[in-house]
Each structure stands twice: as structure tokens, then as C-alpha cells.
């Protein structure tokens, strides 16, 4: 028997409206939408997970490490049917499952609870190892981090280990909106490449470029896609 994904009436152009249900404002600045295009391309064209397969052991996993400003994430989850759009206006209220940082025990479709920076990538390393140990060599593990989040040393423990270990089902999308206080001289990708990762740096607003980078082959190596968007300080 096959199960069909029910038609979801939302497309990329609906996301600002869904976000407005949380923020009360149709116009969102670059900081609020820095992750929006990457999230959309992942959920729309790359990740093999749907509301119907969200509990399957062989699903792809997406770990939102940068739990700050999760409105874009909740909007995409709603657009893809993981959670009802009717929940979005409850954002941040006492009985809402939608906190200002996601809680995996409350948000349908959320793989991890995040908010404190630098936890998603180490958790993703363990997730990739756990799937491999169970013979599940096909599911992909994706983790989204930010360029300022990359300051946290825990990320660098994970990047060095994953590169040395050749964790090739591990994928990072790093949203670079130039918000790291001291910056990353030579770019973020160089840090991954130095540890043996496959890397791509692309325009984080270009869906086809994101898709190409997300689906580039990287045999034997973990893969990092640096998605560059407008600086956080831009109006």
C-alpha cells in the first residue's frame, strides 16, 4: 500500500503571510528571513521527510541548530503540513507548542530542541553515527547553523571529528549573514574544507543554486553549504 502526501496549498510565496501570523507584520527584515530560502529549498526539494514519514527510522533528519528567530522554520513546517497554520498565531504564548526557541517535544516535525547555540552539530554527529550503526546508510542528516553561532567551540569539535571520521551522511547549511562579531577571515567554508569536508558557497537567496549545492555529490566526506545572505545589519 502506498500513502500519498496530501496536497498542501502553500508555496514559497505564502511564507511571508504565514510568518505574519506570528509577527503581525507582512514585511520581514533580512534577519528574520535569513534562513527562509535555504529552509524552503531543503523541505521542498531535498529532504525525504513528510508529515506521514516523520516517525520513520529511515527518514532524512533536519536539525535546526540556530534556534533563534524560528518564525521562518515554523512557517515552512506549516507550509509543508507538519503543523497546522492555525497554530502560528499562538507563537510564544503560554499554551502554544511554538516557543521563541523550538522544543522537539512540542513542535511536530522538529528533530531537536534548540536555542542555546552550538548544540545542533554535535547532536547531528551522533545522529549520523546512530543511523550508520543501525545499517541505515541512506538517510541524510542536515543541520542548519548561523555564522555567529559558529563562534561556539562545540561546533569546531564536531567539524574536526566529522571530517576525520568521514561522516558522509552529515550535511551542514551555514547561513552567513555576516553577524559573527569577529568574522571568519577567508570565509566559513575554509574552516570546513581544512577538516576534509566537501564545501560549496552560494547565494543564499538563489533557490536553484542552493539546490545544486545541497545535492552535489560528496563521496566519503561530510558536506557543508555556506549560504550567503544580506548582512544582518542591512535594513
Amino acid at each position: 500500500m502506498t500513502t500519498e502526501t496530501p496536497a498542501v496549498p502553500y508555496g514559497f510565496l505564502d511564507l511571508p503571510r504565514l510568518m505574519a501570523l506570528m509577527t503581525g507584520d507582512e514585511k520581514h527584515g533580512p534577519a528574520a528571513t535569513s534562513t527562509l530560502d535555504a529552509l524552503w529549498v531543503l523541505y521542498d526539494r531535498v529532504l525525504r521527510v513528510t508529515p506521514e514519514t516523520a516517525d520513520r527510522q529511515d527518514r532524512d533528519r533536519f536539525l535546526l541548530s540556530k534556534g533563534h528567530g524560528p518564525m521562518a522554520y515554523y512557517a515552512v513546517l506549516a507550509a509543508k503540513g507538519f503543523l497546522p497554520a492555525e497554530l502560528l498565531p499562538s507563537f510564544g504564548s503560554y499554551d502554544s507548542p511554538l516557543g521563541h526557541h523550538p522544543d522537539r517535544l512540542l513542535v511536530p516535525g522538529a528533530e531537536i530542541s534548540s536555542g542555546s547555540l552550538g548544540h545542533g552539530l554535535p547532536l547531528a554527529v551522533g545522529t549520523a553515527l546512530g543511523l550508520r550503526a543501525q545499517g541505515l546508510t541512506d538517510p541524510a542528516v542536515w543541520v542548519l547553523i548561523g555564522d555567529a553561532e559558529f563562534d561556539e567551540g562545540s561546533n569546531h569539535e564536531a567539524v574536526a571529528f566529522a571530517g576525520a571520521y568521514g561522516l558522509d551522511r552529515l550535511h551542514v547549511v551555514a547561513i552567513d549573514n555576516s553577524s559573527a562579531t569577529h568574522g571568519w577571515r577567508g570565509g566559513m567554508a575554509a574552516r570546513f574544507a581544512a577538516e576534509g569536508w566537501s564545501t560549496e558557497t552560494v547565494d543564499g537567496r538563489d533557490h536553484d543554486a542552493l539546490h545544486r549545492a545541497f545535492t552535489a555529490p560528496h563521496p566519503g566526506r561530510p558536506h557543508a553549504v555556506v549560504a550567503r545572505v544580506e548582512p544582518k545589519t542591512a535594513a
Partner: protein
Amino acid sequence: MDTMRERFAAVTTDLLDHDPRLALVLADIGVDAFAPAAARHPDRVVNVGIREQLLIGTAGGLALTGMRPIAHTFASFLIERPWEQVKLDLVHQGVGAVLVSAAGSYDWPAGGRTHMAHGDVALLDTLPGWTVHVPGHPDEAETLLRHAAADGDSLAYVRLSAHRNEHPVPVVPGRFTRLREGSRGVVLAVGPMLDAVLAATETMDVTVLYAATVRPFDAAGLRAAIGERADVVLVEPYLAGTSATAAHDALADLPHRVLALGVPKEEHRHFGSIPEHLAAYGLDATALRARIADFLW
């Protein structure tokens, strides 16, 4: 006789052979002892290098995929250094793990303060859900490790030490064991403190309870041991007072007194040996005899 850590290696190697759900995560400490296990189960024995945040994060990730991770290093690097990972990557994610420490309080006195973590159990007391085992003998360590590995998706901490008792107690995980009956009060010895407590109280009319599992605190076991006098002495091999609140809670509806003995909070800038440190902390048999007698008589 083997040490608790040697038994841990043997037991975990055996468990990995029989339970495909188990995985072991190391951070360079103890790697040699697990070489045979790593050779047999390369996908389930992982050494992340000297990266303790990653040690706990990896354990959390393994658990998210349905596995039961065992993570091991010294207590200072297992609980204190990656403390936020313990809080968030395990407890807050709603997943379980077995954390197995060594060298907790004073196992390597010559190594100094950097390798001492007498606050580990007190720290875990700030989080919900932890079972804390403090074996006093390698046989007890084996019983408690096997129990923890098989205990569903629970959060378990097994605190191994070089300090140990001469003979094992046939412990039941989670229960205090009554070793002596008396009428002048109850002395609760935790893990490796038992031999000194038995020696110290040899001529005293007191009940001696033994705890190799301290969390959850066996309040019913303590209550059942209380006679006419609800006077309790706790003797713990980590921070003094760690279980005082639990003991007070167990006796909350009774007039009672609690004396909580353990490792002092103050920095103790001496090296040397375990016996020298126990004497300095007032935890050897001679000092315990005086402190217990002073409180109960």
C-alpha cells in the same frame, strides 16, 4: 581483584556483544581498555578525541536515533566540563544515556584539583530524572552497570572509583541495604565509604544502611530503618551535604536530625594518596568514629 574501571570495560564489552542498541562513546580516556570492543563493533564504539562537548552531544544524537549510548570519561570532564550538554543534549531533548565516570572526588590526589569533581552528584541533583549509582566494589559496579544499560531510555549516572570496599554487598538497584541493626540512630554509608563506616561504628549501637544507588533516594528504606530516634548520619564520598535535602525530605513529618559528612567544598591544595585525603576530610574510620559518636551521644 580487578578495579571498577576494569570491570566496566569487561562488562561493557560483553553488553555490546549482546545488545545491538548499545553504543559506547569515549573521549580518549579509557580507549585502550575498549580496543577489543572497538575492533568487534567499529560502528558502536566511537572515540571522539579530547572533545567532551562532542562526547555528550554525540551521545544525545545516538539516543535520538533510538540507540542507548554509554559515555565515559573522568567525572570532571563528563559532568562539569560539558555541563550544558548534559542539561540540553540529554535531559532537554528528552533522551536517555548512561554516563559512567571515574576518578570522581579524590581518586588521583597527586593530580590535584583539575581532576577532582566532588560536585558531580550535586550538579545532577539540579536536573530531573537521573538515577545515580555509586558502587563500592567491582561486583556492585557490574550489577549496576548491567541494570543501567538495560533500564529503558532512562538517564543513569554510574560513578566508579578507585576507592572501594573489601567485600561486595548484594545490592538491589535503587534500594538501601540494612547491614546492622541498632537503636541510637542510622548511619547511611554511600558506596566506597562503607568499610570506614563499618569500622567506625563497630562498637556503636546504631543501624548501618548501605546505598549503592543514591538517586532516586530510597526514602522508604530510610524510613523503615528509623527506630525511636530519627537521627541520621550521611557519609558520602563526594560533596558533603549532597543528600542532606533528600534525607530531610524523607523525614519531613518527624522531628529529626541529620549530620551530613562528605568531601568539603574548600579547595584542598595537597597531593599524596587517597588515605591521606580521606583523613584530611575527616572521612577515615578514626575521624568518622569521633564525628558520629559526637552527634549521636
